[in-house]
């Protein structure tokens, strides 16, 4: 915190676990978040993402492990003393207070002088674009406006860490996109450390510096969005983000694998024996005429087009390899010419670097 305008503090989870009765909601949770970093916890419901958030906020007590904010252990601290901003799933605005009173609440609790509070509330409502609705009750505001009040209330007291629990879940798609951009803008401007819980992979990809993918109370992978998308740690993560084709390959000597009739170079060691699952994103596969030349360092296979769908900016092909395996190809469209019809023989090819191998579900 050398720059006083940057609010963020680092957060550290060390071997944190939470047990309810005999089952663990979260276990072995290790995560280090840098000051000013935006990290998303992503997972299906029941993956332990909200429990982790609640432990940081102080509403759940870890069964084991320790949590530190700005280098200080917070485990023994009651929620009110943690100085962590939070936007709740349903906003949890106080229904009997106006927008301005809601935003003022944390300042009032901190005993700040009245003049200072009024200035801070006015400034914050201005930042979220609600200055003209300051005297409305939450019930008189739209969902998006309520969300903005909740955000303003959570950051008006300049907390070093901001937690958001599916804050955009109840909003329609267009509003979500607007608010995603707005939250990112405010976060970057204030330098807040943000822990953002979501089950929406697209939201996680667009907003986060890093994404922490969770399943059954454990972390599967923590990485930058590009890395998560391009190099998923396992087939679950791969399936969670976007579409993926799965092809079965068998090792063919050192440095090569056999995919049906073709042998492809394989940089990794691969399994000594048994099958390897190869994943390829549909947009990384090119579709061409049967006799078209294949670029260097590409793997090419013959296939038959089964279905073709026009989706505006791309065509989606479903093709069958000669092994019988189905492959989806997304062909970006610069113009509408060309295209392949169902039943047509085509050549599919992709760069060898586009292949990701998995053994028993784990990246190989």
């Amino acid at each position: 915190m050398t720059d006083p305008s940057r609010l963020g503090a680092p957060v550290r989870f060390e071997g944190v676990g939470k047990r309810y009765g005999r089952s663990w909601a979260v276990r072995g949770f290790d995560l280090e978040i840098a000051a000013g970093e935006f990290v998303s916890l992503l997972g299906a419901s029941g993956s332990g993402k909200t429990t982790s958030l609640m432990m940081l906020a102080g509403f759940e007590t870890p069964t084991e492990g320790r949590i530190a904010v700005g280098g200080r252990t917070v485990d023994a601290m009651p929620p009110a003393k943690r100085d962590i901003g939070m936007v709740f799933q349903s906003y949890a605005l106080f229904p009997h207070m106006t927008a301005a009173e809601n935003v003022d609440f944390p300042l009032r609790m901190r005993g700040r002088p009245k003049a200072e509070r009024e200035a801070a509330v006015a400034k914050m409502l201005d930042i979220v674009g609600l200055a003209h609705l300051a005297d409305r009750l939450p019930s008189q505001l739209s969902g998006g406006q309520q969300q903005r009040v909740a955000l303003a209330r959570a950051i008006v007291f300049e907390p070093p860490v901001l937690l958001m629990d599916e804050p955009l879940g109840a909003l329609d798609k267009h509003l979500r996109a607007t608010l995603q951009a707005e939250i990112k803008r405010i976060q970057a401007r204030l330098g807040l450390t943000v822990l953002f819980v979501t089950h929406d992979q697209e939201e996680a990809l667009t907003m986060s510096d890093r994404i922490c993918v969770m399943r059954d109370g454990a972390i599967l992978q923590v990485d930058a969005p590009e890395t998560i998308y391009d190099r998923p740690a396992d087939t679950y993560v791969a399936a969670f983000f976007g579409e993926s084709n799965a092809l079965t390959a068998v090792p063919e000597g050192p440095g090569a694998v056999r995919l049906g009739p073709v042998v492809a170079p394989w940089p990794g060691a691969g399994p000594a024996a048994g099958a390897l699952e190869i994943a390829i994103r549909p947009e990384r596969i090119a579709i061409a005429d049967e006799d078209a030349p294949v670029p260097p360092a590409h793997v090419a296979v013959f296939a038959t087009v089964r279905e073709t769908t026009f989706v505006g900016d791309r065509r989606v092909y479903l093709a069958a390899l000669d092994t019988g395996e189905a492959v989806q190809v997304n062909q970006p469209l610069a113009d509408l010419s060309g295209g392949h019809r169902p039943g047509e023989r085509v050549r599919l090819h992709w760069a060898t670097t586009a292949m990701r191998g998995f053994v028993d579900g784990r990246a190989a």
Partner: protein
Amino acid sequence: MSARALRLSAGLPARVALGAVALLVALFLVFPVVIVIPLSFSGSEFLSFPPESWSLRWYADFFTTARWLESAWLSIWIAVVAAILATVLGTAAALGLARAKFPGRAVVTAFLLSPLVVPAIIVSIGVYFFYAPLGLVGSPIGIAIAHATLASPFVLVNVTAALAGFDPRLEQAAKNLGASGWSTFRLVTFPIIKPGVMAGAVFAFIASFDEMIVALFITSPGNVTLPIRMWESMRNEISPAIAAVSTLVILLSVSLFFVAARIQARAVARSGGDR
């Protein structure tokens, strides 16, 4: 939906019959209460219906007779103290039962609601023997405490209903924003459940104000509550004064109900009606 279906399916004669039955039931319920109102304006010395002449003399009698006024003030004082005690205890019990998870919660709830079920005469005997060694028999505070125990279930029921519609995340939000436990209650929980608390307090007041059996057991000649005074008056003199007092009591009860209804309506309007 079912009422609508009924209305659509039932013919005119059926609807008239239903209306007539409903009216008869309503009359049956209200008539004994309403009958005392014309009686109270009687100009004669004796209770008779219909009154032969009209006057306000029995109201004047009430407001100028010391024993009526003393009893009225005593009952109001007892009811206020009992309502305050019952409201504090009932609200605390409702909060505790709504939040805490412990085995035997249902048993504790039933226990706290038992004053509604246990016959008043049993409670009266118990209270008498409990109070006698403590020297509380005959004291107004003793009656107020006994009434508070009888009235607290009304508060418990009303506050529990209010808490059922209360989002506990609001308390989490308050604490997250830096509020202490007391501030959270004072600034967030209480303002939101206030209509339920107020309604409970009004019911508690009325429960104490017209309670007679327990009061009869622990009253003393110097401390006679209004219901006991009315009962004695009924037994001894049967003057229309009793009707005037009854009318005043009805007026007080009905106004209190309107106050409670207004508090509740305002709360609904303020929260936008969706909570």
